[in-house]
């Protein structure tokens, strides 16, 4: 089951859901809006090898805005720190964002229960779109789980600002043959 906006507010006030800072006017009927932090990351390598740590370049979004390239990709983040130990969060674009041709995640909407931090937005723009710090770009829903809860303790816990992929640290690579 999905929480209503008033229920999200109640759970924030009861410290069961974290949304910090919390702005009641960002509540929607079934979600709460997330705003864009002023930092984006771009990968430096022309070809990504997920087995290797990737260098990124940090760019500040000026108050006058940053134009995203058509079919360009970069990482942004929410200003808000979000999470819950009882509900499963999911991230979605606001429909206004999507109507402007911008993805805020790249097929990764589901957040682990127990994860607390800023949300890294996977910004894929289909048009030359200008984004601004603080704009309401995304929204978060909260879902009641069924079953015993084991909290997230993974590599993105406690994120502040956008975090690049840390997949190169995953232990499963050891079971795959090395290239070459």
């Amino acid at each position: 089951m999905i929480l209503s906006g008033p229920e999200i507010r109640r759970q924030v006030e009861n410290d069961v859901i974290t949304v910090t800072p919390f702005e009641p006017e960002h509540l929607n009927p079934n979600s709460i809006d997330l705003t864009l932090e002023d930092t984006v990351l771009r990968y430096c390598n022309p070809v990504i090898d997920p087995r290797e740590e990737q260098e990124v370049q940090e760019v500040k979004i000026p108050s006058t805005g940053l134009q995203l390239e058509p079919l360009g990709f970069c990482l942004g983040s929410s200003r808000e720190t979000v999470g819950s130990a009882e509900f499963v969060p999911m991230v979605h674009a606001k429909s206004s964002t999507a109507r402007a041709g911008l993805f805020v995640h790249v097929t990764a909407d589901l957040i682990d229960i127990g994860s607390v931090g800023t949300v890294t937005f996977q910004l894929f723009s289909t048009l030359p779109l200008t984004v601004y710090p603080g704009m309401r770009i995304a929204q978060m829903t909260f879902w009641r789980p069924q079953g015993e809860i084991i909290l997230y303790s993974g590599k993105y816990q406690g994120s502040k600002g956008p975090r690049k992929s840390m997949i190169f640290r995953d232990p499963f690579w050891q079971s795959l043959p090395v290239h070459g």
Partner: protein
Amino acid sequence: MILTGAAITRAVAAGDIVIDPFATERVNPNSYNYRLGHEIHEVVMEGEGQPEASHVRLAPDGGRYLLRKGRFYLGHTLERIGSAHYVTSLIGRSSIGRLGLFVQLSANLGHQGAVHRWTLELLPALDIYVYPGQVIGQVSFWNIQGAPAPYAGWYGRHDRPMPSKLHQPSAEPPRASQPLTRTGESQ
């Protein structure tokens, strides 16, 4: 309601969810990590006027594939996944989304009852290497309300990347009922 990792593990043990092969180290707090299968095809539109899709199987280079941004590929999950009791949602994982690789194009919802290797719609926003056998996405499982309908679909009977039958009028299209091959290539 969405199942927690512990509930997914219990449902797999009870036979209510199929994840084959299954490993407890790939269980997340509220999802399960699936891996990339060994067969990837680039979908190429060819011809003037009304181009038709052809599917070119990629050749691995030293155990990996190079996916180019702006191109579109079909792959598949290594695992057979599905459930007659729960609804499966197939998505990526944030470690892959953070690298700009879509693994599915706004079609996360699986039909209850379909158990198979799922076709992945791979759209890279950056040039990226992928490795068969690597963890590439997640599935979550959801409770239903109401009587379940029996699944009688077509895609759900296949364990290899299956092409779109969007432009095939019949339920059993002769061309698309074959797994993907390079145009003119024999199986």
